[in-house]
């Protein structure tokens, strides 16, 4: 029979991982809004975030500096990808398809490099706060869950301020609305491209660092995360960062319920099915498309 405590636990876990998907989805939107590019290497940032933090902590660096360093390194990696893969294609006016293929290839290259450097064994990070979970009416709320949800909410608020108040954030929004007009206003669109890659990579890295203690990380975890983030972005109406976060929560929930009802082997299948359902029936997402 249906166990309400177990169900509540499932929902909580779903929302928690949904926050992660949402952050990755926002990463997709940030780049898409600045450039119209869908960066299929997004998953690599997530994997790198967790992996670099793990490696640094192996060197006995504490969590916080490890994480910060990892975020900076991944943001730089985002800029590097933008410089050596995306920018040359952008300058040559490559088609959308070529851009997708190139970023997908970049993802594979990063994956394989990681495999060479750290091997194929799954790695993990210790939970941030090593205390027994809080029990609330039988539901166990782990501290990592609180970390994930808390950090996500802080990030969402910070992004909101960034897009509303700062010059760079506003310029990014202007690019999203109309790139030509933004360029006429003196916004250097190509600089926005680099910055959007840095921002999006940093978001991916944070997501990766947050999620790694609850699961594990390995060289090949990027693609499933990228797919989930993309689904979040689509469900939220592509190009709407906050819609993407909402989409992530919904996806996390749907996935958790599918696992709850049908078994854990179907986790990826559930996500992919959500993707196809939205693509076929409502490609503009639940809130409608941004454009």
């Amino acid at each position: 029979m249906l166990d309400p405590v177990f169900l509540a636990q499932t929902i909580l876990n779903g929302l928690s991982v949904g926050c992660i998907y949402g952050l990755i989805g926002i990463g997709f939107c940030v780049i898409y809004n600045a450039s119209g590019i869908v960066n299929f290497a997004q998953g690599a940032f997530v994997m790198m975030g967790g992996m670099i933090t793990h490696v640094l902590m192996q060197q006995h660096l504490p969590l916080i500096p490890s994480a910060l360093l990892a975020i900076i390194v991944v943001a730089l990696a985002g800029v590097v990808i933008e410089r050596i893969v995306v920018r040359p294609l952008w300058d040559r006016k490559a088609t959308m398809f070529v851009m997708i293929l190139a970023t997908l290839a970049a993802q594979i290259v990063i994956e394989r490099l990681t495999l060479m450097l750290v091997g194929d064994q799954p790695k993990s990070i210790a939970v941030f706060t090593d205390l027994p979970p809080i029990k609330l009416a039988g539901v166990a709320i782990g501290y990592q869950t609180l970390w994930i949800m808390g950090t996500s909410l802080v990030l969402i608020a910070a992004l909101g301020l960034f897009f509303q108040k700062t010059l760079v954030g506003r310029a990014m929004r202007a690019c999203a609305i109309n790139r030509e007009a933004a360029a006429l206003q003196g916004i250097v669109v190509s600089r926005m491209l680099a910055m959007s890659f840095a921002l999006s990579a940093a978001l991916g890295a944070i997501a990766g660092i947050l999620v790694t203690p609850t699961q594990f990380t390995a060289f090949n975890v990027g693609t499933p995360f990228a797919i989930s983030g993309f689904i979040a972005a689509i469900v939220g109406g592509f190009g709407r960062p906050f819609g993407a976060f909402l989409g992530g929560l919904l996806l996390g929930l749907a996935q958790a319920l599918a696992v709850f009802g049908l078994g854990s082997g179907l986790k990826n299948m559930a996500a992919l099915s959500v993707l196809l359902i939205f693509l076929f029936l409502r490609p503009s997402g639940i809130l409608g498309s941004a454009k």
Partner: protein
Amino acid sequence: MATSPATILRNPRQWLGQLPLAFAVAVVAYAIIDGGYIVTVVGFALIYAVFVAGLNIFMGYAGQTSFGQNAFAAIGGYASAVLTATYGWPPLAGIVAGMAGAVVCALLIGMPTLRLKGHYLAMGTLAIGLIVYEIAVEWQSVTNGYMGISGIPPLGIGSWELESDRAQLIFLAIVTALSLWATWRLRQSRFGRALVALSGSEDAARALGINVGRTKLIAFVISAMFASLAGSLLVHIVGFISPEMIGMNMVILAFTMLYVGGIGTTTGPLIGAVVIGLLPEVFRGLKDYQDLVYGTALILILIYAPGGIASLGRLAPKRRAAR
């Protein structure tokens, strides 16, 4: 016209343009004569040439996007594996059954999916490839999960098995030649023109009376048949199938071959498959880093030589504007 200086000038260039093809054919011929270790390498390249030739119809000619062609290779591969290894069917029957299955699946998948455009189409097809991979992993009773299925018999016709590696390679060479010949005939036909037309402008194609949706779907089904055939051949040559053989890496490898050989050209798939297939043999040290090298090569080609090798001999970069 025939005597104009431009034509005379163009002729040596055209001849030069056939060099990559001559090289690819020479490699295959050498492998057949040599009969040694290179047979395995070239056989693998020929199988991929079939897969890429199908991809070329849907992407090179019709200008569409599919990141999920591995799904159809999986259908062919698993159909052949299960029917021959478990139920004792002859290989040819398994191949035909796989292709029939691929046609049905391509129709069912294509109808909703091909209505999508841009990155939605890219992600939709990618999802289909991943779903089939997941099925291959999870449907243990049929696919044996990660462990895969072994004991698949070699190719043969009727009760006559192609025992020697050399005989198998000759068979593969014939199948590949027939596949390329078929794509060439398609490209020269009314159907092929409609494909290239809709890749240029869907609106103009519709205004001229071409049923764009139907034409795309047919192209998708044909390329699925090629993929399924390649999947079947692969499992018979290797004697084994596992989900890893039909995963995302298959798609990336195929795209690398397609772009190296020259997307939209008839012989490009063969050239690309042979060149990329030989790469790890020429540079022995590369073996462990295959995917790394393929990915890097793909990025470099996309940026610096989007027309591939087949386009190098041309006077003008004709197909560059294609996609």
